[in-house]
């Protein structure tokens, strides 16, 4: 086995981030399709939510990389 197994934890955390941010992006696209004039607000909200989800995923990455 190459490398340490803790990095597998990092990979799993990133799966969570991928799913989460993908959902956020998908719903944002639906919302913009329904109401194009609100696309500015929707995009801003999407970016904020994505940053928060990414923060959580990075907790997992940091913990797996600590030692």
């Amino acid at each position: 086995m190459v490398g340490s197994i803790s990095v597998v934890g990092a990979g799993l955390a990133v799966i969570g981030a991928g799913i989460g941010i993908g959902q956020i992006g998908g719903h944002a696209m639906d919302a913009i399709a329904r109401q194009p004039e609100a696309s500015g607000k929707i995009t801003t909200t999407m970016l904020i939510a994505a940053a928060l989800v990414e923060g959580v995923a990075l907790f997992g990455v940091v913990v797996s990389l600590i030692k």
Partner: protein
Amino acid sequence: MVNKINTSGTNKLVLAIIFTFISFLNGFAQAHETDTTHHGAVGHVEGVAPHDAHNEHNPDAPVDIAKIAFEHILDSHSWHFWGEHNDAVSVPLPVILKTENGLVMFSSSAFHHDHDAKVVAEVNGQRFVNFNEDIYVASAQPNGLTGQYLTFATNEKKETAIQNVKPLDFSITKNVVQLFISALVLILLFTSVARSYKKHGVTTAPKGKQSFLEILIVFVRDDLAKGNIGARGEKFTPYLLTVFFIILINNIFGLIPISANLTGNIAFTLVLSVFTLMLTVFNGNKNYWGHIFTPHAPKALWIILIPIEIIGIFTKPFALMIRLFANISAGHIIIISLVGLIFMFKSLLIAPVAVGFALFIDVLEVLVAVLQAYIFTLLTALFIGSAVADHNGDGQHDSDDEKLVAEGHH
């Protein structure tokens, strides 16, 4: 009376040009470096160099990208530009240690670029070694096994620990210098903008950097401070502005190749989140503490809810700290790893792919830099807002406030 900010077409064009220029510059720096051959000492590519501790100029030794990446995101006692070992071009920074015999100060050039505890710096009769940028008091004799001036001890659980004394380290390290630099840049920028406000007033059209900064400042003041804290937002606007701009400028600095990674240092983000914690704790009004110690739930649930609420006071700033640190450090590691792929495969063919990916990630990192500054400030404003929330303005936590909250008032 609202002062509308004129984000004219020219402003947007200037921003777009600056943005493109920065991302192009980063990509250009990487593309330029991949043209050189990779025998031994190559110029620093985004801070990457084949840095073999044991093989001085061995082109066939495997390149340890993880070690290189960590060397670039961690703090250091000298500001390393390029080169390795004795050819290294770096600026030695002052080392300030507090030992039992008092304060000791010397230049880190006493270590002669050694990070492996093999070179002893003798100062005022005291001997120190640098082991991976941690400074220890040197052992009298070099270790028989590795030649390092450190004594290791293995306990029953087969964990090795260093037995040498570690003095308190107050050195001016790379990150400290970076903090001074960014503080200086911020002071110069904002005092000059303030001076032009003083000279020309607030109703004339802004010129130059004032027009760029005004967008950001008014955004933080109106949308973040007033939007989330309400009427008392004015009191906290200076702190929010400081936090926003210092994180933004250090994030941007961190993306420049030969620079320090300050916002990716957990001690820096820890301090910022401690400030946020102090602000929420010391500005919390009766509403706030009431919600924590007497939450709005059936009394039977209080036995679980109150500990959760108390822990929640600390987890929110903790999340702020980890989010900023991890986002920025992870971004730097990714960029270094992508460019390091070229050195790992030792082939120019991988260069277009690696540089392309790295350029893409670099642009994303610029977005992340701005976004993380915004998120930190937004969440700080939200926490402060929830601490000073006074829904009907009478300073009392009573049923009037509850009715307003239930109706959806902020």
